[in-house]
């Protein structure tokens, strides 16, 4: 067992444990904080996969913006946060069965795939993944159109969020 595998197993255990806390803990502020732990674990996975830019983007956007937005939303709807009733609905066991079936089905499909246990190719020395990614995002031959559409989507979401949450009183 190499050091990479040990790191992966520790990070994977942290991700799954904190994700379980996100969906089961009663206090929503705690759930949002556990989500930060999960997102940080995913950032470590990106670093293990040599996707350095995505690891930084994960920390900056997901932890720095989205998780903080969740904490603000929990604070703005504070009355429900102190709700002492059960946080799961009455059919939660059915949801658990559906989730387990989804997991089993995904693993069953993946088991039949011949490349399931493939090993990563060598990372060439001097290979500039960030430079290639930047070129791919702005090159007309590659992904400039989806990139621009994503920016229009963000603008539309920004305007829509301000309009929906605006207090008209």
């Amino acid at each position, binding site marked *: 067992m*190499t050091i*990479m595998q040990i790191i992966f197993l520790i990070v994977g255990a942290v991700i*799954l444990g904190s994700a*379980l806390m*996100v*969906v089961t803990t009663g206090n*929503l502020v705690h*759930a*949002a904080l556990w989500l930060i732990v*999960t997102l940080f674990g*995913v950032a470590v*996975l990106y670093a293990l*996969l*040599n996707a350095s*830019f*995505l690891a930084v*983007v994960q920390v900056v*956007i997901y932890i720095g913006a*989205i998780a903080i*937005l*969740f904490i*603000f*939303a*929990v604070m*703005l*709807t504070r009355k*429900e946060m102190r709700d002492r009733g059960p946080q*799961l*609905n009455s*059919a*939660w066991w*059915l*949801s*658990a069965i*559906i*989730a387990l079936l989804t997991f089993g089905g*995904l693993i069953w499909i*993946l088991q039949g795939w011949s*490349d*399931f*246990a493939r*090993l*990563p*190719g060598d990372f060439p020395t001097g*290979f500039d*993944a960030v430079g*290639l*990614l930047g070129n*791919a995002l702005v090159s007309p031959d590659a*992904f400039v159109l989806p*990139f621009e559409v*994503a920016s229009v989507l*963000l603008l539309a*979401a*920004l305007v*829509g*969020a*301000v309009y*929906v*949450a605006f207090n008209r009183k």
Partner: protein
Amino acid sequence: MIPLSWYLTLSAALFSIGLFGVLSRKNAVAILLGVELMLNSVNINLVSFWRYGDITQMAGQVFSIIVFAVAAAEVAVGLALVISVYRRRNTVIADDIDMMKW
């Protein structure tokens, strides 16, 4: 070296946990937390397929950046809707939000 199967199994487990959260939580904000977990598991898949395939093709990383953008948009609009509903109905329990039911 870590086999691809480890990443895919972890992301399948994370997706299932997120699905459980979406289906079983009462609070609308907690449902959005489950959606975030599912989007993250998809991102792990995309990046690991990039790493274990042809690494000169950047499609996997570009798609995961677009998933980031979509997640940010979804959270902004979703939380704005939750806050707006909370102002009008004083609740964020998904079962009580039935204004569009007839």
